[in-house]
């Protein structure tokens, strides 16, 4: 587990107030019980933690922790190459 993955899982666990071990790279948002309001809060925390801006249309397509981690990685990469 790299930094991005562990931080994403940690933020999700904090938002949902669930034990961190319940959040894995293979969890879907549905399994975790994340609703749209949880999602906007998590996106807000991710933007702050990684100093990135997550576009709405991209955010809307994400339905799992794996997609979220991949999305954050690609935004970090885009920022570093800019």
């Amino acid at each position, binding site marked *: 587990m790299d930094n991005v993955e562990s931080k994403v899982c940690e933020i999700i666990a904090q938002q949902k107030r669930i034990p961190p071990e319940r959040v894995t790279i293979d969890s879907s948002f549905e399994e975790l019980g994340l609703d*749209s*309001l949880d999602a906007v809060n998590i*996106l807000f925390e991710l933007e702050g933690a990684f100093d990135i801006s997550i576009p*709405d249309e991209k955010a809307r397509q994400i339905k799992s922790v794996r997609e979220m981690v991949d999305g954050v990685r690609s935004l970090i990469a885009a920022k570093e190459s800019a």
Partner: protein
Amino acid sequence: MRRVVITGMGMISALGNDVSDNWEKLSKGEGGIRPITAVDTTTLKFKNGAEVRDFDPEKHFSTGLDLLDRFAQFALVAAREAVAQSKIEFTEELQCRTAVVTGSSMGGQSTQDAGFVELYRVGKDRMRPMSIPRTMANAGASHISMAYGIRGPVFTISTACSSANHAIGQAFWLVRSGAVDVAITGGSEAPFSYGLLKAWEAMRVISPDTCRPFSRGRQGMILGEGAGMLAIESLEHAQRRGAEILGEIVGFGMSSDAGHITKPSAEGAALAINNALNDARVNPQQVKYINAHGTGTPVNDPMETVAIKLAFGEHAKAIAVSSTKSMHGHALGAAGALEAVATVLSLKHGVIPPTANFLEPDPECDLNVVSNVAKEFAGGYAMSNSFAFGGLNAVLAFRGYEAS
């Protein structure tokens, strides 16, 4: 119970600064969504809004402007238009038998936003003396009360996007019950401050382009501003003074989802629709048009589709549905008031204003959506939905005026 009729209306929105300019655009399906000018949008994810244009406050207010936030200016401008059209003369007696009930979600928040910039960013250590009376959500109602000497029940309801419908509903019941003879009622909002736009950005419900309610490809709502005001009175009162009657309010229903703070519930919305039908004692089959809440968000429109089906069953398919938010934007606490004016005008003129910017039907929103082009309204009852964050629902029922 007394019948309650509308004898005057005022409206200011992105579509125009009076009722006739607004109707000109509404009836043609022409929108008022454009790049936002009130603030620099460089650091905003969305750039478009439905702002009031060509509005010079100095032309409307020779004195007292320092007391009026933009939302209160809109409230007064629309109230003046409504009162002027109604030709009501506020005698000493009538002043005590008249109510003012307004809705506003955010009040004078741009006054507060500007004051806090001075305080926190510029580093000044004081706020302007009029900050509080300009910011309070009841400022619009109080200024209307003072303008006409209205001394009956005067208050403001703040229930986010349902504020104006809740306000009009309360005013309707006050007149119907006989508590007052006349009411000025509606809502006003002016949400275009940088701080508030940033807060909406964080909700991720604002469209990056335009507002396409019930359409495939919709990406969210577009914020709007303005005010709508109705002058309403008992039928006897209107007839006694020979007033021209524009339409009739026949029912009002409310409900709460008691569920999620932002995710709406179709059951809650349907309950408010049913309550309005029962209050109006209207057979659901008589409802021919619904001016929908129709925000254009991915979540609202399918939910509202289910709600309308729950409330009307098979008849749902026969009801023409449109969202005028596609043209005047979502004016939050004023939304229901702008839509009440649009609904009364649609009954009066026999024309249903369309849902503008409609691309193609979404199977999740399989209602009889009036898309892009206005449609003839052959008569019957019309309803106007408002569903707020917080799960608070308010629905009004109208019909064109008939003497019997």
